[in-house]
């Protein structure tokens, strides 16, 4: 990720020279007032505040767009063919290939132009937006694009910030403002940002410099020094930075100084086009294309050779009736050979049709609508259906072999409920959530001990109330939150409802809310922050206040967070909560022993467990910690690392109070969905526990820190041992009994945790050996659980599987920002429109509202699209092979002179009009399911079906040509003795061809809707009509009236009719035979499918 960002940075910031880029920080003068102390004031040059998301301008649109389009290999190929046709004397006019190419290019250009126009419009709206800027004490209205770095900008409520600002002054008394970053990362909660301290005095006279790092795209990282003319140095963090694109909320107005502008804002830097994921199907298409290209080249070579062999016979090169022109006589022999070769290429180039690309694109584009139209994906709760971000991967959905799923919010609903807690080894369970204070009951401790425990209990609950970053939702009266009124409201039945019950809490993670709410149930209510004081109402309804000294933020590496608070009586306490694995090593062992059992049990039941620890800090200890933290925060380089070191240092020697268990309820039908996916042969890897991932009879292989520590030896040794053992069980078991594989198959499940995984990946030099062992075990298990993973580890796992042997197709599904890396890594990324913001949705290829929709998406749409696209591609190759093969064979009969068999109109229209619509309709509407074909990987785009289609094409092409050839051994085919010429020959072949390929498709169609009927019979009717029409008129713009009445005359010949019918039937005969001989499976398969969905 970071590499990507870095590259992006270099690409995006075109305002900067390369050298300046090396400078680590930039200095900004607030209000452009130089600091008296600094010697010289050189107004630094930064880029202006214009946002340019558009790709083109009016002037460069044509060249740039054309360049981009012709960078695609297919377009380039067709351009070359077109140019050859223009330059060299070729059998077909340039129009035949130029027209379709022109069509494709134009349509794409119009589409891209329109999209760019929309972007221009959006840019303009942003850039021309009027903002208020303080200039020399006066307020001036300016267009947003004219803001310069260093300007002091005023923003009022509900406005978005025009650039990245450092908050200087807020209208709120507590020097904060609220911001929602919905349009940046999708988190719609209100975030608090703080002003720079000591700048309350007049902004007009404020002269200060801001030293901040060069623009970088990480939204949550910001390291800056703010110096008030060297008098004082302040370090600022992301909580002082207001990002462009975020919206001011709950605050009347603020002033801020612009630090990053225009394309250097964090939003613009994050504005990245996702890397294009290419469908695996596309790769097989390219492979097939290569084969056809070889066929094409060899055909052209054969013909060129034949031509010169034929010409070498006496009297054939230039018989008296067919003299060359002077120009042709003068031309160089080798040049002639080359142009002949090119001409043959052009003649046969229809074998690789430009229209296939168009049709495939159209199919994917239109097909994706069916996904977003599907009402089964509509979720009434969020009023949204599925979202398709890329239509390229429709068919890939049906080919998924590995499913990687995130737990929180994906498998589960991410609505947390506090279930139980465990204090000093005693379990407290809230049996009935409606009972209030007294619901705090003891299940496994004697009642008499309750009193003695009270102190510990309260400490635990205070810890829950203090150790978090939850905010209490402001009640401004106009809010739509009913539960906001702190003073209590009357319930519907008039009964007094406890005010706190209805309190709205906002936090970045729902766990924290659940914990605070849990504490509230037991009598400790968090009332909110009041200028750095946390107010907590205890059981006796007294309000206790604690001064918040430091927050040691949560991060996924440490997997814990802490707060340092000072109580009224001056005690300084550190409360820490975090995952058991990260807390246990930092507390005393005997405490761990008391609690670990509970934690373990809760974890097995699928609850999220957190351990809570605390530590009393002496004033010396605190002073030391305080100094360390401040120093680390001021650091400009490696601030993260330094902070981490201090955190780790402070969070030691704590004592464990207890543990909590929060239930994260499973998504609706999560278990059923997972079961269905497994039944469909997919392997489900999850970053969680629980759920019915493990079916009965599954043998579990566990590889976690706990199993590794059993032996008490070094972890590495143990890891080696365990891996080998599991490998033997899981892998070798299969290889020894391949015969009984299906019947006596033992399902294995595999569990690994983050710590062990990192051990596997980067422990020792021979980690690659571990890795392959690990991979082999995993591949033989139906289910793999990866617990406690960092985002990067998730991506690592996906990457490992993706690059393993056979390159299986992987799918990642997740809902949160932590899943983005995984979503981007997998072949298909699916985002859930859940509660954790839109990051995942934005980076995904498909977004669905609920996990349960995955089943239909993969087993329904995915499978359908796979069948459709596979058929589409194969059919295209087939129909063009039997289109061009007669033309090739004709070269043997016309002295290899590149004489086309078909008229130019037929050559052009064949792929565009006569045969394109039926296959498009088929590829959009077919619902032909043949389960066992779909189960096997890439079964329909492998070489054997491809070979079958190719052979069919060759067979039919030969049949068409030679059938008519034998008929034409006597060209007197009419009952008046008149004869047919070469264009009649071509027309008969072409008629047979059009009917055969259309009827072949009709035979493959299993699902005849009226559209199929319309399009298939319509195409044939159109062909008839067109042929009559085309041959019925002397076209003034045509140089040669080749087809004049050819078609009508053909239809007047009984022999022509008979041969057409015969050849159509004969070419379809093998297909019919195969259909009959193949076992009739469809009815059953369809039943299977419907039970699956």
């Amino acid at each position, binding site marked *: 990720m970071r590499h990507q960002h870095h590259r992006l940075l270099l690409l995006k910031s075109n305002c900067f020279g390369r050298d300046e880029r090396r400078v680590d920080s930039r200095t900004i003068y607030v209000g452009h007032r130089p600091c008296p102390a600094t010697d010289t004031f050189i107004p630094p040059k930064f880029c202006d505040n214009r946002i340019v998301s558009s790709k083109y301008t009016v002037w460069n649109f044509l060249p740039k767009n054309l360049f981009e389009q012709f960078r695609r290999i297919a377009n380039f190929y067709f351009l070359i063919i077109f140019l050859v046709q223009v330059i060299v004397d070729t059998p077909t006019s340039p129009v035949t290939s130029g027209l379709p190419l022109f069509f494709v290019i134009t349509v794409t250009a119009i589409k891209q132009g329109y999209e760019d126009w929309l972007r221009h419009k959006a840019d303009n709206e942003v850039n021309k937006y009027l903002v208020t800027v303080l200039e020399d004490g006066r307020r001036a209205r300016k267009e947003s694009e004219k803001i310069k770095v260093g300007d002091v900008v005023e923003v009022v409520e509900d406005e978005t910030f025009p650039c990245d600002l450092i908050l200087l002054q807020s209208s709120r008394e507590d020097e904060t403002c609220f911001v929602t970053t919905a349009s940046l990362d999708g988190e719609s909660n209100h975030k608090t940002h703080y002003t720079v301290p000591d700048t309350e005095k007049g902004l007009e006279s404020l002269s200060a410099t801001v030293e901040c790092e060069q623009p970088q795209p990480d939204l949550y990282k910001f390291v800056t020094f703010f110096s008030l003319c060297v008098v004082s140095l302040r370090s600022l963090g992301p909580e002082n930075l207001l990002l462009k694109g975020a919206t001011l909320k709950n605050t009347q107005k603020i002033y801020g100084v612009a630090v990053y502008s225009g394309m250097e804002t964090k939003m613009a830097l994050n504005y990245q086009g996702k890397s294009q994921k290419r469908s695996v199907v596309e790769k097989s298409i390219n492979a097939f294309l290569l084969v056809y290209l070889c066929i094409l080249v060899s055909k052209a070579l054969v013909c060129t050779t034949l031509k010169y062999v034929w010409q070498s016979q006496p009297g054939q090169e230039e018989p008296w*009736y067919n003299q060359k022109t002077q120009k042709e006589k003068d031309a160089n022999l080798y040049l002639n050979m080359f142009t002949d070769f090119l001409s043959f290429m052009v003649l046969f180039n229809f074998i690789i049709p430009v229209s296939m690309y168009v049709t495939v694109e159209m199919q994917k584009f239109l097909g994706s609508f069916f996904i977003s139209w599907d009402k089964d994906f*509509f979720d009434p709760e969020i*009023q949204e259906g599925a979202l398709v971000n890329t239509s390229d991967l429709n068919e890939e959905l049906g080919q998924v072999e590995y499913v990687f799923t995130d737990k929180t919010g994906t498998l589960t609903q991410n609505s947390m409920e506090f279930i139980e807690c465990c204090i000093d080894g005693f379990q407290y369970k809230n049996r009935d959530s409606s009972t209030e204070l007294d619901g705090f009951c003891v299940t496994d401790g004697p009642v008499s001990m309750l009193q003695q425990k009270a102190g510990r209990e309260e400490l635990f609950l205070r810890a829950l109330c203090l150790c978090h970053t939850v905010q209490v939702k402001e009640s401004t009266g106009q809010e739509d939150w009913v539960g906001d009124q702190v003073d209590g409201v009357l319930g519907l039945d008039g009964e007094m409802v406890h005010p706190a019950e209805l309190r709205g809490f906002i936090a970045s993670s729902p766990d924290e809310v659940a914990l605070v709410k849990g504490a509230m149930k037991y009598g400790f209510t968090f009332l909110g922050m009041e200028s750095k004081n946390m107010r907590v109402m205890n059981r006796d309804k007294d309000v206790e206040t604690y001064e918040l000294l430091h927050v040691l933020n949560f991060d996924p590496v440490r997997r814990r967070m802490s707060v340092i608070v000072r109580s009224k009586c001056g005690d300084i306490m550190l409360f820490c909560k975090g995952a058991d694995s990260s807390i246990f090593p930092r507390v005393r062992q005997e405490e761990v022993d008391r609690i670990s059992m509970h934690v373990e049990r809760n974890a097995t039941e699928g609850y999220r467990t957190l351990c809570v620890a605390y530590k009393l800090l002496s004033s010396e200890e605190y002073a030391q910690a305080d100094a360390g933290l401040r120093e680390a925060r001021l650091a400009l380089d490696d601030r993260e690392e330094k902070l981490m070191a201090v955190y780790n240092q402070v969070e030691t020697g704590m004592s464990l109070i207890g543990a909590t268990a929060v239930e994260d309820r499973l998504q609706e039908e999560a278990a059923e969905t997972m079961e269905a996916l497994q039944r469909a042969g997919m392997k489900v890897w999850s970053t969680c526990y629980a759920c019915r991932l493990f079916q009965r009879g599954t043998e579990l292989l566990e590889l976690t820190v706990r199993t590794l520590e059993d032996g008490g030896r070094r972890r590495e040794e143990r890891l080696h041992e365990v891996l080998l053992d599991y490998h033997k069980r899981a892998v070798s078991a299969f290889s020894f009994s391949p015969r009984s594989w299906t019947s006596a198959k033992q399902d294995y499940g595999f569990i690994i945790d983050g710590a062990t995984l990192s051990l596997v990946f980067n422990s020792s030099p021979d980690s690659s050996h571990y890795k392959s062992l690990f991979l082999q075990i995993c591949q033989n298990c139906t289910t793999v659980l990866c617990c406690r993973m960092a985002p990067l580890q998730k991506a690592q796992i996906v990457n490992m599987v993706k690059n393993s042997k056979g390159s299986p197709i992987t799918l990642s599904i997740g809902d949160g920002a932590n899943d983005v890396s995984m979503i981007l890594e997998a072949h298909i990324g699916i985002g859930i429109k859940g509660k954790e913001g839109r990051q995942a949705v934005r980076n995904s290829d498909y977004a669905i509202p609920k996990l349960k929709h995955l089943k239909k998406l993969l087993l329904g749409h995915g499978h359908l699209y796979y069948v459709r696209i596979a058929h589409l591609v194969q059919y295209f190759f087939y129909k063009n092979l039997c289109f061009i093969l007669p033309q090739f064979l004709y070269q043997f009969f016309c002295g290899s002179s590149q004489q086309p068999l078909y008229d130019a109109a037929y050559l052009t229209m064949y792929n565009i009009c006569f045969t394109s619509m039926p296959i498009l309709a088929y590829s959009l509407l077919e619902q032909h399911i043949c389960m066992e074909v779909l189960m096997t990987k890439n079964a329909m785009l492998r070489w054997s079906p491809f070979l079958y289609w190719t052979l069919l094409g060759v067979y039919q092409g030969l049949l068409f040509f030679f059938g008519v050839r034998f008929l034409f051994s006597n060209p007197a085919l009419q009952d008046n003795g008149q004869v047919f010429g070469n264009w009649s020959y071509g027309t008969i072949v072409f008629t047979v061809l059009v009917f055969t390929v259309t009827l072949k498709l009709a035979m493959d169609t299993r*699902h*005849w809707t009226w559209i199929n009927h319309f399009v298939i019979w319509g195409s044939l009717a159109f062909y008839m009509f067109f042929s009559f029409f085309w041959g019925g008129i002397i076209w003034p713009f045509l140089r040669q009236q080749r087809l004049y009445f050819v078609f009508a005359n053909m239809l007047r010949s009984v022999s022509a009719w008979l041969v057409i019918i015969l050849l159509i039937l004969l070419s379809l005969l093998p297909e019919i*035979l195969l259909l009959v001989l193949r076992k009739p499976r469809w009815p059953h398969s369809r039943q299977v499918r419907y039970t699956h969905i």
Partner: protein
Amino acid sequence: MMASNYNAKEEDGHQPAAIGHGGAGTVKNKKPDNTAFKQQRLPAWQPILTAGTVLPAFFVIGLIFIPIGIGLFVTSNNIKELEIDYTGGDMSSPCYNCSQSYSWNSTKPCTCSVPFSLDQPFESNVFMYYGLSNFYQNHRRYVKSRDDSQLNGDKASLKSPSKECEPYRTSDEKPIAPCGAIANSLFNDTLELYYIDPNGSRTAIPLVKKGIAWWTDKHVKFRNPGGNDNLTVVFQGTSKPVNWRKSVYELDPSDPDNNGFINEDFIVWMRTAALPTFRKLYRIIHKKPNMTPTLPLGQYILEVTYNYPVRSFEGRKRMILSTISWMGGKNPFLGIAYITVGSVCFFLGIVLLIIHHKYGNRNHSADIPS
């Protein structure tokens, strides 16, 4: 690929109007329409081809094709056809001298007579074809070497023919009419047929030269510039094709409806053949009003005015006499093909029927667990 850009706009969410919405898309109710099309639930016919449905089709095809094939075969066999090669390649043939002593600019036409005899009388209308072998009328350079608008009577094209006609476009600075290689190589042998009466006297057989070209070609596609009269005037300023002995307006001076571009021999020649061995309709011998056969059995003489050289490219020239049926000229291919395909279908039908009966039930039960 096409839809991939559609989410790009979401990120430009700067418009103040959009503020207050949690994310994108809560603006309006996006519930998809519940239409059969959008939900992919269009009523559909789902045919399942099974042995049961296809088997009768095989029998039906067999039963239809075999009679048709037999009919075609019998018809083709009943067609009488006589082919006479008069190339004169070997010493013994009567046209040997003509073929050897050929030169383009000889003024005196070379004639030869080829005697032949009919074993059977030819009933009904008899069609007389000339056939050429190894003559690549379908060579690309040849096929395109014509100007259809000139042939359609366009006066501008008459004066400046299309570039495609090169190198037969102009001669002596004058445009050639009709231009191009096809016209230039017009078949110009004259064939005449004489019946030798048993008493030894020769009777010329009347050869009709109209009705040999496609009606549409003669009446629409080919037209003389400015009507069929005064062709000499119209074609003034043009040159005759280099290999021709006479101008285009002298092709049939006796009949203005068969002269110039609408000369039927010319039109027939201009319809290029599909294969290097081909035949073209030359004359029609109409049946006699009384019951006597058109060509009674006996001795005949084919009088050839030998103008057309084929030796240089090892070609052959033939004269073909043929009767015509509803399916056209003699061609056993269709009949044989129909009989073969019909029998194969019938046979397959029987085989499949056996397979179906023997294994059908077992297949069916084995299928269910799938």
